[in-house]
């Protein structure tokens, strides 16, 4: 540090002492407060990081393009426990249905349980029938550090499942989708008092 810098620093200190006799106490308090704030911020960041690791996302889409335009059903559970539901058809001047609601942690926990119990995270769609003119299904799930994004054609019945190259895996998807739709239809139907389909 140069002499000039030292002089400036000393001058600044003395000026502070003149204007504020309790300067030393203030300094201590400020340091303590700052330290406390840092600690709190660290805690918040730690909690937030943990929360992010446990983040959860689910999206299911089923649809096709045909005589009545693009008809589809899609629902999504996003961060912040948001459930979004969309049902689209122009059949006999049907209106679009777009609903959104926040569900409780209990609902999200139940969905996670349904997903884990199903075993879908262990499956792969490489041997499933590809989307075709009949339609398309998409299932996307992020759960902790796993991310699946499956797509296949519409499944009419268990007969379609049995005929596929991976009947066991497709059966997991088939039943999981039914269970998820059942829960979502209950949530949307009761909350908004609409027939979801």
């Amino acid at each position: 540090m140069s002499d000039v810098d030292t002089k400036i620093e000393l001058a600044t200190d003395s000026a502070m002492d003149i204007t504020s006799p309790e300067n030393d106490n203030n300094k201590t308090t400020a340091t303590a407060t700052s330290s406390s704030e840092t600690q709190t911020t660290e805690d918040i960041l730690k909690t937030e990081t943990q929360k992010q690791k446990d983040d959860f996302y689910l999206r299911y889409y089923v649809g096709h393009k045909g005589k009545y335009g693009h008809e589809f059903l899609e629902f999504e559970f996003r961060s912040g426990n948001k459930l979004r539901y969309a049902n689209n058809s122009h059949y006999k001047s049907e209106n679009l249905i777009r609903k959104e609601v926040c569900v409780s942690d209990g609902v999200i926990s139940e969905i996670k349980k349904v997903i884990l119990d199903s075993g879908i995270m262990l499956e792969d769609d490489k041997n499933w029938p590809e989307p075709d003119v009949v339609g398309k299904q998409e299932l996307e799930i992020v759960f902790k550090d796993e991310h699946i994004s499956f797509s296949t054609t519409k499944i009419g019945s268990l007969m379609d499942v049995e005929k596929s190259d991976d009947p066991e895996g497709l059966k997991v998807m088939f039943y999981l989708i039914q269970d998820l739709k059942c829960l979502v239809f209950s949530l949307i139907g009761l909350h908004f008092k609409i027939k979801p389909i």
Partner: protein
Amino acid sequence: MTDKEEVEKIYTKDLRKGILPSKIKGRGANNSDSMDIDSSERYSGKGGEFHSLNDDGGDKVGEPLKSIEGWIIFVRNIQEEVQEPDLMDIFAEYGQIKNIHLNIDRRTGFTKGYALIEYEKRSEAEDAIKNGSGYELAGLKLSVDWAFITGNASLSSGVVSFKSNRKDKNNSNNSNNYRSNKGERRF
């Protein structure tokens, strides 16, 4: 970085905030699907306007949210052989049940393990949550909570779209646009 590697890293930024799984499993991870229907088309214009019951954003975040006709609670940890009358016997004590959904497991045919119960008054639902939580039914302790809560004010702010792991495609020249303003309304 190759296209495939880039695709594997693409995900809803507001959700994952940079903490991403190292790999996406499934054919949805690549863009080769010729039948790919872009979400921007699905939710363009009024198609992206979602209706919720707390649009005013006046309530505090995380508070119980009233449904159209009543207050709905969510019951978990229900033993698989429990049936609707069993739940009715317990929860009718706290008030008149307007609706009950006890869904079944599609594979087994047994109860799935959760139920939604609707009461007309908030006080009744609160009693059910307070007294029903921890109630032992068929050897399992029930867990009871609200089904719906108030969200952020941003919950229904304008046009929103479903997220996807795929890149946005430019659909300006897409002739398969089935949307028209006719018959569409904002809820």
